[in-house]
Every structure is written in structure tokens, then in C-alpha cells.
């Protein structure tokens, strides 16, 4: 077993180095579970209230598309699994794929694994240390989730199955990232490809759950939800998932043994010997550096839009069948359910695409810490022009992604029988989110200009916006806190009327943030 020599020391290194990161991931996921249960109890205090909620959700195609199959909704446990299951699994998957990519290919790309491998450390030791780290993290999340549910009086078996489904889904995406890390030599590509698998898994289960359920069996998330926590539990759907985990890890180890250190399976192609004319100014460089990321996000958003548009007619037909509900919505002066559904879809896609917005603005910090900013700033390029180049790409990228979201949703809706006139309507409904995304770009940049060490706080702000956007009612987040999120201030087209004032105000705040960031950047030292 000399191949594994040193695994224990490397494991300790991982835990020591990333203890804060690991702690935040585990604590935030478990905390989300822990606070959801009492909120649901308060929201549905009686069995009658639960029955009513179950009846409302039973045939609500939109809710099912976002959350998962309606099973056991007339119990607190069933509601917890419904409201939190899919989202929780996405979080666990994100934790697993980011951590795995970081600990394997990220370390290798940075050249640190090479230093370790020159010591008496086995070939597979760092891979194994990463696997053990991820297994431990997922066990911790699943175990603490189980305890949190049990402590609040939910059934033992249900809590156990729910926690176990988190663990297995987490391990699945850790294994996917591990395999991706062998194939490509670029850490961002590892995140991108594993993230694409996650997106596909979510979309497949949404389409399956809306339809006859077949497709859900082919999605790791859908499969995990087939364990029916708190609704007549069954364990066996986890077995094929675990088999896949073993298979993926085996494949990764085989590939790892065959490839050279530092290389992937795809050999790098030689590049151009001279730069194209477009690569001659800061904006050309920023576009070149970010276009791959933008294309990746664009594909992800397009797939999401196609799925949402595809599901939309089902939501439509549900309303047609349910006259009582349709009359109720009409008499309330509210929007149609289909329009609310589209509004929610765009809010989700805008929040997800804001991941690009922040990542794109953070490029500035990445360039700075990698000392590449120095090479550019040592030429007659001012800090202002350098920052403006990446900010332009970030802000324009937001618009591009929203346009992709609107068009893909609209066209796929038309393909399923919707009217052509809905395409421009949906495009507009997506584009109104641009100011909110710009505000997040501005906020990230302001932190970068003033306190560059804290730029990652921008991710926490995005996480808060997600919580406000989706769990505000369940978590009883006070109204004034909700109104802090720019995404709550955007008119929810097409369900609401367009009001221009909030868009102007939010854009102005975004511009203000950018000015503050520029002020900070002009004054501070660059490069550390």
C-alpha cells in the first residue's frame, strides 16, 4: 500500500488548511435544516392546516417542478422534505464539488501537490486524503441533519433516510468532480463540468416529477427523493447511487494512475504565435479571459430556461382544470398562475446567474493576487481602465445571461404550444433583473476596492439573497430584511406591471458602489 503512504498527514493538512471553509459549509447547511422545522411547525400549526397545504401543493406543477414529488405533504416531516429536499441536496452537491475540485486539481494546478509528491508520499495519497475529507464532511452534514430533525420530534426512520440522502448525493458529486479533475487540467473546468452534471440532474428530476416520473429515476437528486422520507421510507433507491459513486471513484483512480502529474487526459493544443488584433487593449484581454466562463454559464442558463419553458404548458393545463383556483386568482386581481410561475423562474435564473456576476467581478482580485495585474498596470494602463475592462465584461455578461434566460424560456414555451407573442414578453421579464445583478457586481467591486481581503463576503450576500428569495415565508424573515435584497425590489414581470423607478434607483446604487470601489482602488496598494 505504498501508493497511499502519507494519506493521514495530508488529511490533517486538508482539515487544518480549510477548517474555516469546511466549518462554514457544514454549519450553514445544517442550520438551514434546523431552522426550517420550527418554521414549518409554526406555519402549519394544526393537522387541518397541513391537510390544506398538502391539497394546495398536491397538483401545483410549479411547486413540484421547483421542489420535487409531492409525497407525505400532510405531515411536518413531509413538508420539510418537500421545501428543503431538492435545495438542500443542491447545496450539499455544490459543497462537495467545490471542495473536491479545490483539494485535487486546484492544488495540483497551483503546483503544491508536486512539492508534497517529492516527499515520501504515495501516488494516490492526496486523492485519498481528499476523498476522506469529503466523506467526512458529507457524513457530518448528514449526521447533524439527522440529529437536528430527530431533536425536533420527527420520526427516526424518516430523519435517517433524509440525512442519508444528503450524504449519498454529496458523495456522488464529490466523485463526479474527482473524475473531472483527472480529465481536465484546469480547475475552473472541473467546477464547470461537475456543475453541468448538477444542473442536468436538477432539470431531469423537474421534468420527470412534472410528467410520469420516469426521468427522475435517472437523476441522482430524483433518485434520492425516491427514498420517500417521512412518506413510507424505502432505502433501496440509494443503492444504485452508491454503486455509481464506487464506479466513478474507481474510474478516477484508474485515470489518475495513467496520466502524468499536472496533466489531464486532453493534451493542451498549441496556441497562436502572435496575438489577434482584438487582444491589444484591456477590454480585449478581459473578454478573452472571461469568455469561456460566460459561455459555460450561458449554456447552463439556457438549459434551465428550456426546462422552465417546457414545463410551463403543464402549469397552464393545471389551471385550466382547476376552475375554482383560476376564479380565485382572477378575483384577487392577481396575475395568472402561469405568469407567477414565469416570474419565479426568472428570479431563480437571475439569482443563479448572479453567480457569474460575482465570479466575473472577482476576476480583478484573482488577477491581483496572481500578480498578473501587475504586468498590466506596469504598462500605461491606469487602474481605472483595468478595473473598467473587467467590470464592463461583468455587467454586459449579466445582460447576455438574462437575454439567454428569457429567449430560451420563451422559445421552448412556444415549441410546447405557447404563443409567439410571449417571447418578447418573457425576454423583457428576464432583462428587468439586470440592475439587481449590476448592484451585486458593484458591491463586489466596492469590497475589492476598499478591503480586498474580504471580497468573498460577496458570496455570503448572494446566499442571503437566495434565502430571502425562496425561504422568506418559511423562515419568517422580517419584512424590512427582505426589502434589503435588490431582487425583491425588481418588479416581478410578467406577473406584475413594469415600474421603472426601482430599476433606476437600483442602477444608481450599483453605480455608487462602483464609484466607491474605484475610490478605494485608486488609493490603496496593489498586489497583496
Amino acid at each position: 500500500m505504498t501508493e497511499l503512504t502519507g494519506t493521514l498527514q495530508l488529511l490533517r493538512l486538508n482539515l487544518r488548511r480549510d477548517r474555516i471553509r469546511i466549518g462554514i459549509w457544514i454549519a450553514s447547511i445544517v442550520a438551514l435544516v434546523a431552522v426550517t422545522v420550527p418554521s414549518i411547525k409554526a406555519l402549519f400549526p394544526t393537522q387541518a392546516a397541513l391537510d390544506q397545504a398538502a391539497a394546495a401543493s398536491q397538483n401545483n406543477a410549479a411547486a413540484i417542478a421547483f421542489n420535487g414529488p409531492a409525497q407525505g405533504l400532510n405531515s411536518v416531516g413531509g413538508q420539510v422534505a418537500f421545501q428543503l429536499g431538492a435545495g438542500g441536496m443542491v447545496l450539499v452537491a455544490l459543497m462537495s464539488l467545490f471542495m473536491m475540485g479545490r483539494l485535487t486539481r486546484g492544488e495540483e494546478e497551483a503546483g503544491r501537490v508536486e512539492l508534497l509528491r517529492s516527499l515520501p508520499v504515495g501516488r494516490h495519497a492526496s486523492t485519498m486524503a481528499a476523498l476522506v475529507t469529503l466523506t467526512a464532511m458529507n457524513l457530518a452534514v448528514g449526521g447533524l441533519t439527522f440529529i437536528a430533525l430527530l431533536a425536533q420530534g420527527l420520526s427516526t426512520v424518516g430523519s435517517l433516510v433524509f440525512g442519508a440522502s444528503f450524504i449519498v448525493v454529496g458523495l456522488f458529486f464529490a466523485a463526479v468532480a474527482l473524475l473531472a479533475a483527472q480529465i481536465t487540467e484546469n480547475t475552473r473546468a472541473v467546477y464547470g463540468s461537475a456543475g453541468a452534471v448538477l444542473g442536468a440532474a436538477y432539470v431531469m428530476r423537474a421534468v420527470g416529477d412534472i410528467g410520469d416520473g420516469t426521468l427522475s429515476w435517472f437523476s441522482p437528486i430524483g433518485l434520492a427523493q425516491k427514498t420517500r422520507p417521512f412518506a413510507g421510507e424505502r432505502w433501496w433507491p440509494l443503492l444504485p447511487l452508491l454503486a455509481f459513486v464506487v464506479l466513478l471513484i474507481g474510474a478516477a483512480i484508474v485515470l489518475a494512475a495513467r496520466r502524468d502529474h499536472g496533466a489531464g487526459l486532453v493534451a493542451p493544443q498549441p496556441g497562436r504565435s502572435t496575438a489577434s488584433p482584438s487582444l491589444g487593449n484591456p477590454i480585449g484581454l478581459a473578454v478573452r479571459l472571461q469568455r469561456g466562463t460566460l459561455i459555460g454559464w450561458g449554456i447552463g442558463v439556457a438549459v434551465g430556461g428550456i426546462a422552465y419553458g417546457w414545463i410551463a404548458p403543464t402549469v397552464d393545463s393545471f389551471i385550466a382544470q382547476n376552475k375554482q383556483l383560476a376564479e380565485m386568482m382572477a378575483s384577487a386581481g392577481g396575475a395568472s398562475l402561469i405568469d407567477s410561475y414565469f416570474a419565479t423562474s426568472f428570479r431563480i435564473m437571475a439569482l443563479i446567474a448572479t453567480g457569474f456576476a460575482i465570479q466575473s467581478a472577482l476576476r480583478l482580485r484573482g488577477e491581483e493576487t496572481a500578480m498578473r495585474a501587475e504586468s498590466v498596470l506596469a504598462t500605461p494602463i491606469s487602474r481605472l481602465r483595468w478595473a473598467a475592462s473587467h467590470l464592463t465584461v461583468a455587467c454586459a455578461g449579466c445582460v447576455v445571461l438574462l437575454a439567454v434566460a428569457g429567449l430560451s424560456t420563451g422559445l421552448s414555451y412556444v415549441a410546447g404550444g405557447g404563443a409567439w407573442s410571449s417571447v418578447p414578453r418573457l425576454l423583457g421579464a428576464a432583462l428587468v433583473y439586470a440592475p439587481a445583478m449590476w448592484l451585486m457586481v458593484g458591491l463586489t467591486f466596492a469590497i475589492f476596492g476598499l478591503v480586498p481581503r474580504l471580497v468573498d463576503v460577496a458570496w455570503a450576500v448572494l446566499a442571503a439573497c437566495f434565502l430571502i428569495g425562496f425561504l422568506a415565508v418559511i423562515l419568517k424573515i422580517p419584512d424590512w430584511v427582505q426589502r434589503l435584497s435588490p431582487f425583491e425590489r425588481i418588479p416581478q414581470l410578467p406577473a406584475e406591471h413594469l415600474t421603472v423607478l426601482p430599476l433606476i434607483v437600483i442602477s444608481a446604487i450599483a453605480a455608487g458602489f462602483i464609484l466607491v470601489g474605484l475610490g478605494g482602488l485608486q488609493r490603496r496598494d496593489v498586489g497583496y
Partner: protein
Amino acid sequence: MAPAIAIAGLVKTFGSTRALDGLDLTVETGEVYGFLGPNGSGKTTTIRVLLGMLRADSGRVSLLGGDPWRDAVALHRRLAYVPGEVSLWPNLSGGEVIDLLSRLRGDLNRRRRDDLLDRFELDPTKKARTYSKGNRQKVGLVAALASDAELLLLDEPTSGLDPLMEAVFQDCIREVKAQGRTVLLSSHILAEVEALCDRLSIIRLGRVEQTGTLDEMRQLTRTSITAEIEKPATGLADLEGVHGLEVDGTKVRFDVDTEYLDAAVRRLGELGIRSLLSHPPTLEELFLRHYGDELAKEPGSAGGSGKR
């Protein structure tokens, strides 16, 4: 004509670390100036202040007659910079990086660029991700040397280059000097500084310890003497400035402070010289003596701040 670089009393602190502690440095236009010092002594920090990346806490800094912080953009049109660790965009080829940096500076000279690629034997089509340390350094050097900049700021530019490439680099710097351009060369490779520099400064703990031409510096140190003499070696040990005398029959070996060289050789003459070998201190000996002695005296106080 104003000096290319004039620094007086420069102070820069990072938290509680005083990286530069009243540094003085003057580089005249048209000279190749050596900038020496152990790791963490403040060489890179000085250059980064000159580039306007770091803001000086106090002191006066003038670069090509301007203020490096305030006039950064205008000054950067007239200078080229090579960092000690050239960091490249992993998915761009070397050729693309060179063209990009040249265009950002505004003077892409394709003929000179191709000529330099030839001389440094660099393949411009390879992705930066796949370059070795030495090849990354070559990318930075070609981008800087292809320019017409009147000032070159070079921060340990040849780290990782093989001896053949080191020779090419030295040729290039001589050409730059012949064109009347100015070079600030921070280096650890003493032979390189010895071969190229008109004047040099030795810096330690953020302060300049010694400045001058190599000859002037040698004046401040000792010359090694090895001689064979006819008579017994009497009276040598008592001479002022003589250190480490070794006598082995008719052979003597000692170091002498350069200011007392005359008296020592005179005494040797009285003893009858059969053979005489003297060599001036190399820069290496200067450096080792300077730091070897003083660092030994101050254990733990030399902890530099590293690259910033």
C-alpha cells in the same frame, strides 16, 4: 540632466513590518545600476514603489522626473518592467502575452520581437500553462526588451535561465546601454552585476548599506595575497591591516585591507619576492563578507518580509 531615479528617505511599512526604512538611491540616466541585497531586504518593494503599485509612507521618490504614484500612466509609457516571477495567463500562448503587453505599452516592434524570440530560443505557440520557470521568465524578458522604453526595471530577471540564456541576456543589456537607455537591475547573480553594472547599491533591512562603483567598493575591502619569499616571514604579522596570516615555510598567505596594500607589498619586497599572486575581492566575497559577518551578529533580526 535629472537622474532617471532619485529616491531619498523612502519608508514603506506593512503593518508592523518596516520593509523600507529610509532608503536612498540615485540612478543616473544612461547607466546600468546594480541593486543587491539578501532575500527580503526590500528590493522588490522598492521597485513596486517605483511602479506606482505601492504608495510610499514617507520620503521623496522621483522617476524620470515624475511622481511614480501620481503620474503612473504617463511614466509607464517610458519604462518596461520584468518581475522576478513572471506570472502569465495560463490559457494564453507566450506569443500572445508578448504581443498583448507590447500593445498595452503602445510599441509593438514585430521585427525586434521575432529576433528576440530567436535569440532566447522561445517557442511562442506554447500555452503559458506549459512553460517552465525559465521559459516564463523569457516571455517577460522578450516583452520588455522588444520595447523602446528609456528605462528598464528588472527585478531578478534571469532567475531560472540557463547559462547560455544568461549570456544572451547580458548581450541584450549591453545593447540597451549602448543605446543610452537606463537599467535598474536587481539581482542575486553577482557575476551578472559584476559584468554589467556601472554602479551598484547593497541594501539590507530596507536601507542602503553601500553605494559606489565596483572599484570603490573594492577599496573598502581586502585584497588576498599569496607569495613565496626568500627570507623568513618576519614583521608581516605586526603590519597594520593584515589579517589571517598563514606561513608555511617560504610560502605566505594573507588578506590586507586595500588601503594598507602598499605597505604590505613593500614589506614583502624587503623579504625578497620569488612569486606573487594577488587578487582583488570578487563581488561574491564582498557580499558574503558584508552579510556573513553582520548577519551572524544579529541572529533573528534579519527576518525580511519576503516578496510583497
